[in-house]
């Protein structure tokens, strides 16, 4: 392999690293707030809401993400074709072009977000429930309202407590984005695999591996800094 070929390959890989980062960023942006909401729903005192939320979490955590990604892709055409699909839904979904690139991306993102929100929700719930009751009582005795208590007293402490678990989850996401290649969605894993016969070399896979490794490393360092910053109190 000439150095020119390697250069071309490297450029190609970099180009396809962009969609990988896109999946990563969008998944985080949506799944973290959604996870917060799901955590609240699971702690809802109205039991049916809590049970339904729990069922959702169990399914998301109990089945492979790869399966969920594929189901998401097939969902719209299959719902439209099914006999029990109500008319309005058929009209609504029928208008979607399932061959478009945005359909592939959006359905994939929905699966990623729903899956990661379930994991984040459990982390957040654990964090919120670990805040001692005395904190709520002190806040209440001082006259803080419910929202003030949550945002000023509970949430800052929860953030500190959940950061290590979240950083784990986020670093896992870096590598999980590669599952998108099976849909297929063209990101770095997809292109690396495709280039192996072309170049008759493992180099594309090696480069992809290096990319994931570097990405995860940067995040690890970043979270180390954040955790240190959050260590201003015990």
């Amino acid at each position, binding site marked *: 392999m000439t150095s020119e070929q390697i250069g071309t390959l490297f450029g190609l890989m970099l180009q396809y690293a962009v969609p990988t980062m896109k999946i990563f960023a969008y998944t985080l942006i949506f799944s973290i707030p959604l996870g917060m909401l799901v955590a609240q729903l699971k702690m809802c005192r109205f039991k049916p809401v809590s049970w339904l939320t729990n069922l959702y979490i169990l399914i998301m955590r109990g089945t492979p993400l790869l399966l969920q990604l594929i189901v998401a892709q097939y969902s719209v055409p299959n719902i439209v074709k099914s006999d029990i699909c109500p008319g309005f839904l058929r009209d609504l979904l029928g208008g979607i072009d399932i061959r478009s690139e945005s359909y592939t991306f959006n359905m994939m993102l929905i699966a990623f977000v729903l899956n990661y929100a379930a994991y984040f929700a459990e982390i957040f719930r654990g964090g919120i429930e670990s805040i001692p009751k*005395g904190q709520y009582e*002190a806040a209440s005795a001082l006259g803080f309202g419910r929202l003030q208590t949550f945002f000023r007293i509970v949430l800052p402490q929860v953030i500190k407590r959940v950061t290590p678990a979240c950083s784990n989850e986020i670093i896992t996401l870096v590598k999980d984005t590669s599952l998108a290649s099976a849909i297929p969605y063209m990101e770095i894993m997809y292109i690396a695999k495709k280039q192996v016969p072309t170049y008759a070399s493992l180099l594309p896979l090696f480069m992809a591996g290096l990319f994931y490794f570097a990405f995860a490393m940067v995040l690890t360092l970043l979270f180390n800094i954040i955790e240190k910053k959050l260590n201003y109190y*015990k």
Partner: protein
Amino acid sequence: MLEVSKLKKSYDKLDVLKGVDLTVGKGEVVAVIGPSGSGKSTLLRCINQLERADSGTITVFGEDLMHTDQRGRAVFADAKKLHSIRLRMGLVFQNFNLFPHMTVLRNITEAQVCVLKRNRKDAKENAMRLLEKMGLETKASAYPCELSGGQQQRVSIARALALDPEILFFDEPTSALDPELTGEILNVIRNLAAVGMTMVIVTHEMSFAHDVADKVVFMEGGDIVDQGTPDHLFGEDASERVQQFLQRFNR
């Protein structure tokens, strides 16, 4: 100032308060003593709205916090009134419950700013004045975890005082402290008594209760068994049960 009558509270089948009557006048210091599980904390928690009593009446500052209708159901004041009543009362906890992610100063200013809507500068001045009184002016920028238990409890008292409560409740303020540290807290409370603060103090420090309180209340099994001046309660003519309890306590 505070009038509690026939206050009842139960958890499932367990009757924790069985009809408690208590009056606290302005400037009065009331000590509540009694064995563990007698309902002392629950009484304080019902008055401070951390718990809802099942029946009875609570009147504070001439305002009706709760009463019981003819059918025996508890009727509480509306949320707005409950909030305004709550702001006029302060509560100090056994284990401080300081906010660990805030500096000492922030612990004391946060409610002033967010709840009472004071401006940050005034709140800070007020907090510094209180910290000075507590001998903690050098700790303003420390975090609670950097303080001793006694210092933390002084901060929590300052935090409660910052909202200018008209009555202050203490639930065993020294029970979580090493014996050497209880003195500093008791002194703070003594000083508050000296300037006429109205206080209700649940405590196991009998000699302190004797010295500081205008009235001592003995609770057992969800009832007030005996109450009166410290000289009465710690003297010969207290009820037999009280004498028994105190005897065991002194041993």
